[in-house]
């Protein structure tokens, strides 16, 4: 069973994503800020991370989390799909510079997200 880590400071969004993915056969983990997400990823080594960028509750944002994970051999292969309201070209560029594997912009279609996740984890 594949493991998916959902990282978002907004509880509604975490709920939306988990409801979206509940029809698949995944193990779902959640974190509400960057620090928790980093720790959880290192500990649980999920197959996929759905990662928000702006999370004021912690000391690091999603971009930083991605950089740190991609710089570690143990966590480098985790597929990181950004799920963020920062949808401008400049934001995307920052994401790809940090090593993200995919980029999804809020508001998103849950169906599209489901298909993307299926594709990534196939």
């Amino acid at each position, binding site marked *: 069973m594949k493991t998916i880590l959902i990282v978002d400071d*907004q509880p*509604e*969004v975490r709920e*939306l994503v988990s409801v979206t993915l509940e*029809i698949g056969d995944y193990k779902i983990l959640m974190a509400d800020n960057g620090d928790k997400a980093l720790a959880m990823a290192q500990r649980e080594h999920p197959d996929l991370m759905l990662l928000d960028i702006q*999370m*004021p*509750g912690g000391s690091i944002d999603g971009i930083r989390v991605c950089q740190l994970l991609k710089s570690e051999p143990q966590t480098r292969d985790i597929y990181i799909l950004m799920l963020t*309201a920062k949808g401008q070209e400049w934001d995307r560029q920052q994401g790809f510079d940090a090593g993200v594997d995919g980029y999804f912009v809020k508001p998103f*279609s849950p169906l599209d997200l489901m298909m993307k996740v299926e594709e990534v984890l196939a």
Partner: protein
Amino acid sequence: MNVVQPSEDKFSVLVIDDDSSIRRLVRMRLQNQGYLILEAESGEEGIKTFEMFHPDLVLVDVLMSGIDGFETCRRICQLPEGATTPVLVLTALNDTQSIEQAFNSGAIDFVTKPIQWTELLHRIRRLLQLKRAEETLRDHRAHLEVQVQQRTAELTEANQALQQEIQVRSNVEAALKRRIELENLITNISTHFININPLKVDEGIQMALSTIGNFATVDRSYVFLFSDNGSWMDNIHEWCAEGIVPQIDLLKSIPTAVFPWLIQKLARLENVYFKDADELPPEAYVEVKFFTRRQSKSVVMVPIVYNSVLAGMLGFDSVCEARSWSNDIVSLLKIVGEIFSHALEHRRTEQTLLHREKQLSEITDAMLDIVIKTGVDGEIEFASPSCWTLLGYQPEALLNKSIYDNVHPDDLLLMKAAIQNDGIAEYRFLHVNGAYVWLEALSNLLFDGNGCVEGMVFAIRDITERKDAERELQDLNRLKTEFLSTAAHELRTPLTSIRGFSEILITRDFQADRQMRYMRLINEQATQLGKIIDDLLDISRLEAKRNLTLVREPVNLATLTRELIQPFIEVAPSHQFQIESQLNDMCVFADPNRISQVIKNLISNAIKYSPNGGAVTITLVSVQAEVQFQIKDHGVGLTQEQQVHIFEKFYRADASNTAISGTGLGLAISKLIIDLHGGRIWLDSEYEVGTSFYFSVPHMYQEAIPA
């Protein structure tokens, strides 16, 4: 009658005798002696012959038919030649009476018949010698006489010539002396006028008029000048000899059209002069009247010309007596007229120049912009006074400094490029206070007559304010973009739930409780979205202050707070609300709706951030000129970091706390409203202990005064 032509060198002898044998005998004897012989057979014939041939000697017989020898002798002696011609009387009458008669009739001697030939010949020879000597003497005397006369005539002539020459010479000398005086006069006048101070031209003209008037012994000398368009003229200077009444004051602003003949003649650059006004043509009748009224018997006038255009005239009047004008006088006037013309023109040019210079300096003095002129290497030759106000330098302090010295090194290339293109450049210039000010300079190269660059001129303007405004605008634009980007992000967040849950509800089946939960979430997020949009509009209105008018009125903050707190008491049962207010006046001059917005926001925050309930205390005090509002909770408090950012837009102290909803704009809006009222907003907080928010608004009367 035998006529023998007397030769020059032979004596001729006229023999008058009616006895032809005697005549022949005389002929023979005398011819042998070398004399030429003339013969006459009567006294009458003898006289005729004498008149014709003027013989040197006459031999006459006394006894003849017709007139006798005495009478013949007397008649011959009466002839012009007779007086000097010796006459010998030949007589047979050897008596005293006859001899006396002979001498009385003019004979010089007598010879008696019969003729003693030796005696006769001797006497003839002696007489002829005598005659010759006499003649020679007479001739000599006559010659001498002629010579004396000639010499006398010559001397007289020479004397006359000498007299004449002396006269001519003294005339020439007098003329020469006058000429030298004239030349000295002209030299003096022209020397005086060379480099004359333009302010002293009038004085100089006056002096020159007096000098030339005295020299020419006239009664009046004067200058008229025409107006620029030539339509009127002024008698600007006049000199009068003693006893002559000045007329200058009567002759101001005279229309030139009054004197058509005079003006036309002068305009053709001709001189006008007359001894008597009668000489003038009939069409000059106005001028004649004018001169008569002026009592000018004789007048000479010459045109004064600037740039080949008639500018005025210079003249002499003779009042006391009629006089004719010599060429020298006319020439003098012409030369002096030219000197005046040069001086007047010089003065006019100088005045124009001074006027222009004054204008220019007034302009540069009055300008806010700086004008700087430099040499070819940028050394400053002129700086207008505004460089004091703009750059802090006295204009003199910049002279001879290079303009490049004070330009910011990074801007030098740009500036030099602009100079080459006669263009505009913006660059930084070192103010005397050590800071750089932004200048905009229009530069132009200056060229000399040969087309070589001789300098540069800069028109410089301080654009520091504009640059600041530009930077401010850039900052503002950046802030706006940031704001929009942040706003979009904030709008996307609730939209994510709305879109996501609605799609899930559409595409999947859920049990009723889950359906309800998701629909409620959609509804909450949509409400939140609405709030965010309202707050965004509100904040944008508040930030663009000009679009927002506070509707102010006297507001009692204590009363207002009591009204506003009521709804919160009902929805927050775990909180204890308390309002402490001083008794004195809590009135402010404010927009009640806006102030209510602030108070509600602060109460709401106090409740939200003290989730465990507790006391919420509002204190109102009057401090100096303000009413101060304080709201104190016993909630989560704020970290130092949070306190720094708390009034920023979209800042939420703890967004992850699901229990606390908000747009992150409430405090930013509150701050803007209080700022607009001229008040202050601040806080005082301790993490996990509680927070106090404060605001203050000036008392009503403080605001009412300027209103």
